[in-house]
């Protein structure tokens, strides 16, 4: 079967932080996770947007918690797409090692029956999922096959890269998304940890004192792992820290003039809950088209 934008939909969850997915692409959908302030569930990017979330976080007496979409949430989304005439659904989700979202999607796909839905554990998070969605979409535009998408997904898992830093490690630690025994915990200095996601888990890559040093570390990693070629796709996500956008944009333009910055988005409520204000993520993937 030839896959096209007309017969194939892409489903993301809200941790992809791809707020504009629906506006940009008629065949994309976002299934929200939930953020809970004092037990009140709010749908990420639906009931609460990024700006509203950081305002509420600043005023909150206790940290919010998050929960994954239910299989029913995914099932409703899949059914709507099927009813709209889509014959194939690629459902792309954040690493199953950090969230049960993937499991919910798998369970909904089973419930739907047939083999219309292909659920992918991207083994990464945030805008990396959006970069993968955009890469699949470029292939749908010219016509593709399941095999081509599968091999793209495999290569994406191996080659996509995310580096990020957080305002403080407190949020990752309280949310249990990073091991307490990590070497970067416990410093009395104001250290900016440089983190990455590898094989689905968050790992420390380096440590930097001050934002400038963190940025230099971003650049060092970016330059070491990329070439200046067409098809190099970049995304930038920030948690209430827009000052990072310009400096990373400048960095990319200087270091890799041929790269395309696909996406610049604020981190939504769910990723924001676990990364905390002041976090910034830098994502890249060398695509062939």
């Amino acid at each position, binding site marked *: 079967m030839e896959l096209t934008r007309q017969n194939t939909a892409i489903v993301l969850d809200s941790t992809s932080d791809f707020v504009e997915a629906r506006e940009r692409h008629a065949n994309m959908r976002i299934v929200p996770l939930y953020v809970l302030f004092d037990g009140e569930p709010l749908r990420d990017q639906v009931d609460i947007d990024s700006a509203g979330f950081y305002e509420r976080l600043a005023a909150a007496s206790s940290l919010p918690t998050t929960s994954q979409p239910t299989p029913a949430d995914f099932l409703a989304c899949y059914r709507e797409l099927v009813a709209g005439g889509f014959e194939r659904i690629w459902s792309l989700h954040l690493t199953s090692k950090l969230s049960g979202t993937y499991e919910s999607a798998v369970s909904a796909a089973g419930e739907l029956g047939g083999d219309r839905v292909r659920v992918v554990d991207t083994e990464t998070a945030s805008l990396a999922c959006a970069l993968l969605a955009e890469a699949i979409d470029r292939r749908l535009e010219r016509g593709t096959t399941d095999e081509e998408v599968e091999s793209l997904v495999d290569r994406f898992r191996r080659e996509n890269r995310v580096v990020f830093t957080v305002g403080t490690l407190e949020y990752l630690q309280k949310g249990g998304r990073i091991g307490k025994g990590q070497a970067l915990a416990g410093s*009395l200095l104001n250290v900016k940890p440089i983190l990455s996601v590898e094989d689905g888990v968050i790992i420390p890559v380096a440590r930097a004192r001050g934002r400038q*040093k963190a940025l230099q570390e971003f650049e060092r990693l970016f330059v070491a792992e990329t070439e200046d070629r067409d098809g190099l796709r970049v995304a930038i996500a920030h948690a209430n820290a827009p000052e990072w956008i310009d400096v990373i944009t400048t960095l990319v333009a200087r270091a890799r003039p041929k790269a395309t910055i696909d996406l610049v988005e604020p981190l939504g409520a769910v990723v924001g809950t676990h990364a905390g204000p002041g976090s910034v993520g830098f994502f890249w993937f060398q695509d062939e088209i």
Partner: protein
Amino acid sequence: MSDLALARLLAGSALENVELHRRRVNALNVYPVPDGDTGTNLALTMRGIVDALEGSTVTARPQLAADVQREATMAAKGNSGVILSTIVRGMARVLGDASTVDGEVLAQALRAGATSAYHAVKVPAEGTMLTVIREMAEESERPDVRRLEVEAALARAIARGDDAVRRTPEMLEKLRESGVVDAGGVGLVELLRGVLHGLTGEPLPAPPEVSEELTEESIHHEESAYRYCTVFLVEGRAMDLDALHASLEPLGDSLLVTGDASVAKVHVHTDEPEDALVLGRAVGVVDDDRVEIGDMRSQAAERERWLTQLHAAAQAAATEVGLVAVAQGAGNREILRSEGAAIVIEGGQTMNPSVGQILEAITAVNAERVIVLPNNPNVRLASENAAEESTKDVHVIATDTIPEGIAAAFAFAADEPLAANVEAMEVAVASVLAAEITRASRDATVDGVTAAEGEFLAILEGRAFVADPSIWVVLDALFEHFAREGKTYVQLIRGEGAPTEDELRERLSDRGVEADVSDGGQPHYPLLLSAE
């Protein structure tokens, strides 16, 4: 007299004279920072040798000389103490092999001491202890002096040493700027004068008066060789305070007798507090309820804390490389530990750790390769000596300030190979601009910067940079310099007398650089800074 008894007598006399001149030597400290501890370091190093001889039962002269060499090395504190220990080592080697000591042997011993000292220092500077020992050796090598008896030959060498000390300002810019002679040189000559008077049995000449006004506060900043801080009041009639002062003098140090002929307050650091009270009772009535005897060092407790730290380091999981650091200020020690230092030795600008203490730390760390961060120029030589004494593979990274030490520790990775660590840490040290803000302890012109007593003085990369009565003016000048150098991140470490964290944050916002504030707790330096 046995060799051991003679060694005890001479070493004891040497220590006694160094103690007599200790405060004067401390006051000669040229840097306008209240860290004058050259006299204290020489006294503590000498005291280590004396204590070892007191506990020794060795009779064979070569073995005695070997023991003295070993003890001198281990007891050495501060750069002056380390250089002294190398001189003692060189001399002891010669004296240990000689059957009798005459002018000829003395000449050989002084020459060996000089050679050993010059070898110990990477870049020997003239106008220092090195010059003094070298000139004393040269004097003793003159044909007419070689033929003399040892006492006469030593007297000639000492006279030449006095002359060399007088000429040190001609050789060293820093001394000339501050209008002083070299402190270490004075200490060395007085030490040998003590030996000479031990030989002849003549009483030691009285040391010159130290003009500096002493207060209880200032003397508590010094490290004492004695254990008990003893304070009491004496009431009487027509008491002679000068005589009381003179009678207490031999008991210890940090002596203050204040008051008048009817009531006097005595303050003394001594190992014999009861003897001090007896002397007080000899001239008046001592109010027993108001006698304070404080165990300053509470040696037992201090030793136990130290052993606990050593034990914890030894029990920790083995690593490829271990890190030992030296720092003053509880906050700084915590920061260094949080950055991977297995052991942080207390000390720095004042209270320099001994070679022996650094060696204990190196030995305790559960790693066969060890990196040492002295974090102060006064600790570097002792660290290097400890590295040489150790059987482990030890590398000293020449950090001169705590900010440099923190930058180095930040780059430390316990599981990486030694060479990779050394390289990364040296790059880190080179990439920071380190500055210290202190208060000038006297009017002085240093490196072309004139500072009045009490003014805030910034020292940038080891050189005086700016001085002003306002710490904010000094900070402004430093931040402008950091900006010119393209630095974007500044860490401030608060010490005693620092502005509050809030004040600092407020004054330093909108500077175009990121500024972090930590609590170091170091004395003498209200602020330490590093810019990257």
